[in-house]
Every structure is written in C-alpha cells, then in structure tokens.
C-alpha cells in the first residue's frame, strides 16, 4: 500500500538500522501512530508484510506497549502524570481538574475529537512536577490555572510552547555540587558538536583510541569504581570485562535510556544538553569490547530527546567520531537510536533487548547474562545513560581522579533528582556519599512551607523509604544498602509530615501493577492484589487483618519473581508497612486521617 512519503522514508530508514528486520517493529508502529493517530488493521497488515511477520505477531507486540493505540485518540492527547513526584505536588488535583475541564475520563476522547485524556505513569519530569504531556510536548510546573491556559491555546488551534528544557536541570549551582557529567548543562548550544568539542569533547575518545588498548580502557573503568547508575550499582568495568573477547559473533553496546523509575529524570537532561558525551562514552565502550554497533534505547515519551540524539549522531558521523576508521584508528563504530513505546519493564536489561528485537518486553531467563548472550544472541554491554556519560570523564581525567570524587568503592558523582516537598526541586550533581539531610536542607532548599520531614525515597520508587530520623546518611550504594534501602536511580523523593503513607504506598503499587509485564505469577497477581487491597484500605474499607496481609503478600512476591520488578514493588511496600504501621491502623476507623473532613469517605 502507498504510505505518506515521510512515513515511507522513515520505514526505509528504520529498516537499515538493524540486522534483523523485526527490530523495526515498535518504532514503525509508533511512527505510524504519529501519522494516523492510531494503528489500524490495514497498517498492522502492511507492517506485518514488510517485516515478514504474521499479523498476530504484530498485534501482540502492539498491545503490550501503553503508548500504542488501536483506536483513534484526540488531536491533542493530554497525558497527566499522577505518579509519586507529581502526586506530591498536585498531580492528582491536576488530573481531577483535567477531567472536569474536558468532560472526559481516562482514555476517553472529547466529542469534538480535539482532546483525549489519559492518566499516565511517571514521564520523567519529576523536578518539574506536576507535569503534563500533550502529544510529545512537556508542560511542567503546572497548576490547574496554567493547565487551563494551555488547553485554551490548543482549543483555539494554536500550539503553546512546551517547557524549553526539563525544569530543575538549569539552576544556580550549589557550592557543594561537583559538576562532572553535568558540567556543560546551561552552556548555550551545548548539544552542538562544536560547542562540545570546545569544552573537552571527544578528547577522551582520542586518548582511548590513540593511547590505550581495549584492555587498558576496561582496567581504567574498573579502577574508577564507576558503578551502574541505572539502579543496581554493578561495577561497569567488571561488566565490560565479562564480554568474551574471542567470540566470533558481533558485539553490541546498548545505552539504556528507558528512564522510567518514578522520581527519576536525569538521563533526560544528559541527552538533552549533552548528547555527544553519551555518544563518546559509547564509542569508548565499543572500543573496549571490540564492538562495531551501538543502540540507544530511548523511552517513547522522550521523543524530542530522541530527535536531539539523532541530530547529534548525524553530527558525530559528519565529524568522523562515528562510522568507519574513527580518528584514523582503524576502529569502526555505528550507532543509532531506537524508540520504546511505553513500558517500564523495558528498562530491565533483558526485556529491553526483547523489545529492541521487536517483541513484547518480557524479561529473559538468566543466566546467560547479556555480556555473553544478549541482543540477537550476541555478547552485549548494556549500561545506563548516566554510566556511559561518565566514561569520557573517567578516561580523560583518569580513574584515580574520578574514584576520589566519592568514597571507597563508590567512585565519582551522581545526578540526584530531588523532587517532592522541597523548596528547590532540581537535578544536582553531587559527589557520591553526599549526606542526604544536607542534600535536602541545603542543596534543595529544605522542606517546603516549613513543614517537618516525614520520609525520603532515596533512589526511585522501588527503593524502601527512609524515615526522617534515618536520613542522616551518606548517599552511596553501600551506605544505603546497610540502611536497608538502595541508592537506586538517584531519584530522591521528599515527603513532608502531611503525606499519607498508605496513599503513598497505594500509588506506588498502582504503578507496579500497571507496569507488571504479566510474565510470572507472583508479580502479575501480587501487584494487582496488593493494589486492590490498598485501594480499599485507603478508601476507608480497611480491616485489621489487611495490614499483615499487605505485608505478607509483598513478602510472598519478594525474591520469587522472574525479574526485579516484583522486588521493586515489594520492597517499598514492606518498608512502609513496617515503618508506618500506625498510619495503617489510623485508617481503620473508616477514613484517611490526612484527608480534610469535607472530603467524603471512599474517595
């Protein structure tokens, strides 16, 4: 069938990116939706034909991803985030307001076809919360009034300008900050290759290619104590060293830019302001394991970031930092982006690779690990954007320098996204091991409105919350682990004394129930069950036996699920029940004690 030229061009360009046709499936579906507003039967058949798939294979992949639609939506698809960071700053009120204003509910379209509405999970605008996406545009720091104005503009057929960049990323530097990977944030045109090169750009690559061997690169990264910034904190150099050198198969480098852990929005500015830093890190990683091909898997919601990355990749090719014989070294490396389409699970490395292969984002059985059997069954290095973005600094300034920025075994700096009830939400680059209380009180301006601190989620919603009195703690992988929590993804969510912890637990579990892929029984059934109990409990229908039941159901998931998503759902729940059990008990008399008395029971 004849397609609009821009879609036809996109398809043929996508098909060139992968050694296996099916990999183009998810991007093709998303770009189809961009053109037609949805993916109809005809396009399902057409895409199946082009990829040598049957229509069922296309359909079952399509329905997995929450951004992909089989029915038309409104011209302006309004997506309101109510996940924890937005919720703490009025996201739910914004959601209520949007429903009233547009007269439609979740996944409904207004009669005139202009607006459709959807309550969405964390869109990575936590320091600009509450936030709304209209189509791909981010609108941040909203109030109901501001939202009204934006909707008025759309209603009138205009396109209001979105947030110029992620709010909270550009701010006056706090003296305690140690800008390394964020040092180019705020420099005009920092994403352009010329500007990047003026500020030490691609010098690390030159050093790696001309002065170092693949082995010495890995050695340097090992010595730097650079640990995985996606959340697990696995030493990056060690991961790279697992790639079998003598494998005759191609090897792949993947940047995990599927940033979706609620409370986390650091990869977004890293790619938005400094795309070349990531590219440089990936080429160096490629060199270290003798890989010739890299992919950057960017979550579907970050479309403008993907466009920025694409442009930077184009520039890098133009200047010879990608492609054949890079800097005359004889080393070849190709790189391209790949879009997701709405699935938190695809941030899990093996599910990401399934997704990149054009399938439902189900995690894979491990072992074998990706370093040995990864993308297309080949050895693969997969690292978080922040990890790979740190590599040029490690190489350029030396492992020792980098390691010494942080405490023992926790090298370097970290981008902390401080959101929630603080005066100055923002993304701050601080040395590893920086004290959490100081972070909140000094760097982020303290708890908003002079309120008392109740709890802190230290590293994204899956990390167990700390009580206020536990917060005098160095923020590094080992200290947090010792305190029974995790450093996680760097998403620090601050909760004040007026926050209902039952409601907070409920919202967290709602997220995991929505994002559970459904592969294994304990996660699929457990998240949904606990969410149902918490819904009822918070609405005033709680029974005393529900409190241990919530705890046990979470414990029964913990450690038994196929992938870490089950643990991610269980850990915060168990922590909240344990640390704030009295709040659950206070709900037993029929209502949430944190709700104003004029709000009726059951809401």
């Amino acid at each position, binding site marked *: 069938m004849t397609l609009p030229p821009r879609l036809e061009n996109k398809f043929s360009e996508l098909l060139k990116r992968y050694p296996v046709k099916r990999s183009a499936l998810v991007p093709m579906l998303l770009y189809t939706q961009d053109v037609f507003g949805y993916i109809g039967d005809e396009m399902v058949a057409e895409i199946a034909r082009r990829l040598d798939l049957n229509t069922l294979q296309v*359909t079952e992949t399509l*329905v997995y991803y929450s951004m992909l639609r089989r029915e038309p939506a409104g011209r302006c698809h309004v997506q309101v985030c109510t996940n924890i960071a937005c919720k703490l700053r009025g996201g739910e009120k914004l959601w209520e307001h949007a429903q009233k204003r547009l007269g439609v509910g979740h996944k409904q379209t207004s009669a005139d076809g202009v607006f459709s509405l959807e309550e969405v999970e964390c869109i990575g605008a936590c320091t600009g919360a509450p936030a709304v996406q209209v189509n791909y545009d981010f609108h941040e720091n909203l109030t109901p009034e501001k939202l009204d104005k934006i909707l008025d503009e759309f209603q009138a057929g205009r396109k209001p300008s979105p947030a110029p960049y992620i709010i909270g990323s550009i701010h006056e530097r706090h003296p305690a900050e140690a800008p390394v990977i964020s040092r180019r944030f705020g420099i005009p045109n920092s994403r352009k290759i010329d500007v990047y090169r003026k500020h030490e750009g691609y010098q690390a690559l030159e050093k790696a290619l001309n002065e170092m061997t693949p082995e010495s690169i890995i050695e340097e990264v090992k010595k730097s104590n650079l640990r995985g910034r996606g959340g697990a904190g696995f030493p990056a150099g060690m991961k790279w060293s697992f790639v079998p050198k003598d494998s005759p198969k191609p090897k792949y480098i993947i940047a995990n830019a599927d940033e979706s852990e609620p409370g986390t929005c650091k990869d977004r500015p890293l790619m938005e302001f400094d795309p070349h830093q990531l590219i440089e890190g990936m080429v160096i990683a490629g060199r270290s394991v003798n890989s010739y091909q890299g992919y950057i898997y960017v979550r579907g919601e970050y479309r403008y970031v993907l466009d920025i990355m694409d442009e930077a990749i184009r520039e890098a090719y133009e200047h010879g930092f990608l492609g054949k014989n890079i800097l005359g070294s004889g080393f070849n490396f190709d790189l391209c982006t790949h879009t997701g389409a709405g699935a938190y699970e695809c941030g899990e490395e093996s599910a990401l690779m399934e997704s990149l292969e054009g399938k439902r984002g189900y995690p894979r*059985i491990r072992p074998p690990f990706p370093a040995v059997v990864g993308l297309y069954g080949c050895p693969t290095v997969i690292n978080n954007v922040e990890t790979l973005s740190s590599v040029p600094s490690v190489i350029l300034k030396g492992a020792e320098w980098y390691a010494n920025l942080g405490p023992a075994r926790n090298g370097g700096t970290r981008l902390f996204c401080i959101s929630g009830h603080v005066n100055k939400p923002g993304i701050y680059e601080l040395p590893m091991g920086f004290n959490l209380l100081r972070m909140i009180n000094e760097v982020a301006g303290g708890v908003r409105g002079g309120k008392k601190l109740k709890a802190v989620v230290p590293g994204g919603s899956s990390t167990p919350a700390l009580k206020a009195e536990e917060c005098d703690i160095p923020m590094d992988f080992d200290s947090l682990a010792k305190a029974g929590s995790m450093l996680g993804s760097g998403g620090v969510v601050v909760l004040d004394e007026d926050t209902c912890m039952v409601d907070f637990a409920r919202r967290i579990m709602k997220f995991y129930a929505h994002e559970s*892929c*459904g592969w294994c*029984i304990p996660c699929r*059934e457990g998240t949904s*069950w606990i969410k149902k109990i918490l819904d*009822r409990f918070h609405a005033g229908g709680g029974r005393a036996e529900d409190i241990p039941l919530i705890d046990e159901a979470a414990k029964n998931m913990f450690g038994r699920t196929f992938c870490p998503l089950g643990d991610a759902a269980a850990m915060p729940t168990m922590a909240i029940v344990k640390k704030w059990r009295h709040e659950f008990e206070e709900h037993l008399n029929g209502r949430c004690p944190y709700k104003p008395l004029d709000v009726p029971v059951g809401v």
Partner: protein
Amino acid sequence: MPEQKTVTFTINERKLTVPAGTLVIEAARRTGIEVPAFCYYPGLSLQAACRMCLVEVEKAPKLQTACTLVAADGMVVRTDTPQVHKARKDMLEFLLTNHPLDCPVCDKGGECELQDMTFRYGLDKSRFVEEKLHSPEQAWSPVVYYDAPRCILCFRCVRVCDEGMDVKALGVGQRGVLSVIIPNREDHLECEECGMCIDVCPVGALTSGAYRYKTRPWEMKYVPTVCAHCSNGCKTTLGVRNNEIQRANNRDLSGINKDFLCVKGRYGFDFVHHPDRLKQPLVRRNGTLQIASWEDALAEVAARLKTVRDAHGPDAIGFIGSNRTTNEENYLLGRLARGLVGTNNVDHHRTADYGALVQALGESAGAAQAGMEQLGAAKAILLIGNDPTNQNPLVAWQIRTAIRQNGARLYVVNTEEIKLKRKAAQFVRVASGAEALIAQWLATGEGDLELDTSVEMMQLRGAMEKERDAVIVFGAELRGAAIEHVVKFGASLPGQTRYIALGDYANSRGASDMGLLPDRLPGYVWTSDAAARDAFGKLWGASLPEKTGLDSRQMLAAAARGALKALYVVGANPFRTFGAGGRPAGLDWVVVQEMFLTETSRDADIVLPAACAYEKDGTVTNTAGEVQLLRRGLETMGTRTDFDILRILSHQLSKAGVGRAIPLRTPEAALDEIRRSVRGYGVSLPGLLAGGAERTAPLAPANGHKLIDVPAESIFSPRDTLFTSGTLGRYCTMIHSVPEAKSES
C-alpha cells in the same frame, strides 16, 4: 561415540548421577520426586514463569526454578523444606486470586492441574476478598473455546502452537494482570484446528467444543486405541460413556505420537454415531435394497458366490479389500479369496508402493525402515513428494520435532510450496510428475532435469552426501523403479539410511503386508513362488492359485466386458475410487461390507453393515510398518466386525462345498497365525499388549523379480487434507463444522 559426560548432585539427601545438561526438574521427576510446575512442559521452550518449581539450592541466596536449573557437580538441592512448601502455597494463593472457583461446572474439574496442586500444596482458605477480574468466554472456533478468567498464563498453548505445530495462531494480548491469550484473527482462530492448545492447557481455560459440558472425566471409561483415519497410527484414547464416545485425546502421552493428535484424531470420531450408519443387512429385492436378517443375507452371499464360481470359475470373482480394516480382517479376506474361492483377483486401493520399498531394500528391509520415533530423532530428512502437514500429520510433527530438538536439517523436493518448506534447509520445486525423474537422477546422475532444477539438485545432493543416518520419506509419487532409485541413492549416503513410504488411511500398510495384492501372498511373497504357495496352502488347507490376478482397475474393466461376474468389496468404495460411471454393467452381482451407503454399496446387491475401528479388537500397521493394537471401545447394535462377517461366511461357503472353513475364531487367534506365518510379523506380543508400536521386519525374498513401474492409476494418493478422510471423513460432522474444513471442500 564419545562417552556421555555425567554430573553427580544431591537432591533431598539422595545422590543422583545424570547426563550433563539435565534440568533439575527432570532429574527429580525421573527419581520420583515431584516438583510441581505449570509452565514447564517437556519439549517446549523454558519459561520459568509460573514459579511453582522453586527449590532450595545450597549456597544460593534465593530459591531457584528447577525448570531452568541445570544440575551441576556437587550441587545440593532440596525440594521438601518448609521454605519450598511455603513458596508453593503462596504461589497457588496468588494464582487463585483471579482464577474463578467454578470447578463444579468446569470441564477440567477432576483432571485439572491447578485443582490437583491446590489439593496437594495449597492453602485451605482464601484471603482474597476483592472482586475478581471477569470477562466472558469466547468461542474461537466450533472446537476451541477460551475462558480468560480461568487462564493462568502458563503459555503452553502459545508455545505448542508455535514451536510444536508451526502454526503460530496464538499470542498474548494486553499485559500485567490483564494479560490474555489471543487468537490470530481478532476474535477467532484460523488454524489447523488440531486442539493441541486444549490438550496442553493445565486448567479449564481452553476447552473442546466437541466435549464441553457433556460429561465428567470420572464418568467415562477410557479405551486406548489407534486413530481410524490416516496412515500414521496415532494412539488416541477414547472417553466412552453409555456406549457413546465423548472425546478422544492422548493425555497419557502414550504411543508413538506422545502429545500429538491432529484434528481428525481428536474430533473425527463422531462418524461412529452418525444417523446414516448402516445397522441392518440390506438385500436388493425387486430393484431396491431391503432390510434382511443376518442369517438370510449371509446364506445368500454364500449361495451366490458358489453359483458364480460353479458357472464361470473362480476368476470370475474379484475381491477388493480395505485400507482401514484390521490386519486380521485383511488376512482373512485374502485367505477366503485364495484359499476358499481360489482366485488371485485380490486388491485394495493402494496409496503407496510398500511392496516396491520392501523389494528394493531386500535383505536389509527390516533395519532400513524408519519408525516414527526414529523419524523424530533423525538428524537429516529428505522428503520427496507428499504434503505431510495435510496427509500425514504425525510425520510432519515428527519432522518438526527432529528439527526443533536435534537441529535436524530437512530437504524437500515437491511440486508445491508445501508448509514444511518453512522448516526446510533446502526446498527444490520440481515440475508436476518429475519426482520419479528426480529419484533416477539422484541414483544415477542420469535424467533430463531442467537447468535450474539440476543446479538446485546438485546442491541438495551435495548437502545430503554430508549427512549421516538420514531418513528418506516419500509419497505415492514414487513407485516401482523410482523407489529402487531412491534406495540406491540412500545406500550411497554415509551411515544407515532409513526410509518411510507415505500412504493414506489407517491400515493401507497392513492391507499390503497381508497380501491384498493380485501377485503377492502375505509378507510380500509372490504367488508365482511355489514354495510360498505351498506353505500357505498347507496352513490354509487349500491349493493356492499361481497366476497373477487382476488389480482393482482391471477387475472393473473385466466386469465391464462381462469377464468378471461377481465383486466382493470390504470397506472400500471402488466405484468412486477407480470409478468411471459407477457399477460396471457386466457385473452380475456385488456384495459390500460397509458402514454407510457409498457410491459402491448403494449399487450393491447385498450390503453387510460393518463395525468400525473403534468397535473392534485387532491390529493395524502404520505407514512406517509399526503394528499396534486396536481395542474395542463400544458397540453399535446390528453391526458386525468384518472379521466376524468373513469368518462366518467361510463356514457358510464350506457348508455349501466351497473350500474349508477358516477355524480362527478370534482376532487374537488370527494374529497368532499371522505372527507365525507372515514374514516380518513375528512381533512381540507383550510389547503389543502393553500398548507399544512394534516394528515389523519385512524381508523380501531375492528371487529375481524386477520392480516394475506400477501405473499411477493403480497406486495413488487420494490427497486427503487435514479435514477429509475418505468415506469416514464424509460422516465426521464435527470436522465439517470448522471453517477451515468448509473452505477445503
């Protein structure tokens, strides 16, 4: 062969030594230690999704899934600790949160794996008080129903449809707790309707349209027998209640087909209860067929046979046997024709040239025939002609199994782009009718192939020459000398090459083996072989005719000329199969043993209502030469088995002075005689009785007979599909109900 490596590990304090690479779950099960699992299914890819098989492993921080854990030296596994028991209990609690507890009305009740596991390992009370997810049941086809709330998402159905059947008609919709199984056509299935998805479903999520809400599993009697349709000989277990077949499946995984059954094996049993079934003998009087008693009908048959024989000689009578009656019945028919009547005018509808294969293999025929199991274990397969997916579904399944499990390479030569092409390492398309030429070219390098074909065939031959222990499978396209060529080519390949000739219908092979052929006695000995004639003559108490008789087509032609006066037909429809224009005018008299009024029986003078395969004891031989036992599952009043009809008739004839009555009173007695007297049929009786498929070992006498090119008119495949099956298929209403069958006809 290098010695297989083993590992020694401990499970529940027991030391086990198993081959390296063995999964802990398999090792445990083989030792009798149950490790429960839903998603684990032998032969299908691993999932580790249900988390039921979690076990404790020393030094591992968390419980491990036994279904993905490979046993290693020194590993210490425990399956019976409190931690493991609790994990199972908790997993079942999770499963039951959304699973409806409608066991009393669920088809699966009584044979449900979830029910059994809950009984053994589950909690005795539910802590789930929330509303369960519900969605209405869906009819995906007349024979496949899906009840989403009951589905526990073990993905067995998805895998068996993809990996096992290569149909890929099932997928997963939505995600998380809303995940469901979805069919390939939005709200219905378009597939081979094999029902494998229903079979492997551990719960009542996928149910059979043919069986649902009809009975409870414990109310049926189970009869293991052999499918009545194609020539592959799948074991099928009939569930019978009140003398009615409720369902057919193979859940005990017995037989050569293990899991497998196709649409015919699973749903094609209702011809048994078809209202058109003949239940009383019919005798033509004043031009119409009228009901008669068995006594009158049989007396008349004997009298008329004697009259014709006396007036025109034994060669004025012809016998056409069946490719769906048992070996014992076929043996009896041949004995009656040759030993009592005294003619070699004996034939059946031949659908493969088994005789030529046996002859070409000569002394080595026993070892050179591949059984179904060997086909599934093959490393390389050459398929010439035929479309196994449609005509020989188990053969197709075994080929796919060999590819999936052993990485076997499949080479296909066909005139059509058959479905197995998708699995082929090489596919060569040849012109219609060129298969024999291809065989000749493979054996001799001679033959005028088209340029493209010869280039491709050279590549194929080159690849085959590197394969060891290949299996060569071919259809009715190869006959006579072409088979000799294939065997010559096979003999030039490394290792032991084995062969399967593909025929059609449940006992085509047996009809051939039992000598329902104009020039052969049972066991492929020639009628011209005096010693063989003497041996059988002694056994049968008769002097056997030497002259080659007429084949089916020649009999009809002779009848048209008036040279053949009487035709005796058993379970066949020659007026249609070989038919130009129905009953030949010159035939004085026709008798037919049949289940239905076919083109032949409706024009007969006497019709004797016969029992069907599911109503009989006896043996049948599949196309690969494996003998299996049929067991009587039920009876239809008024019918008699072909065995009984022939046996009684022999007494009637004898009484009328035609030959000596056959003294074999039961199929068991006949089998005993066959085992002693028919070459290759000395099979193990205990093996048969235990439900095994016993391989025959035919041995062709090397007495200088040259293989002749049998004309295509004499040996040909009816090219049945998955949804047709000769006469029986016309009365399988369940099969007709699926849309794919309608588009076939």
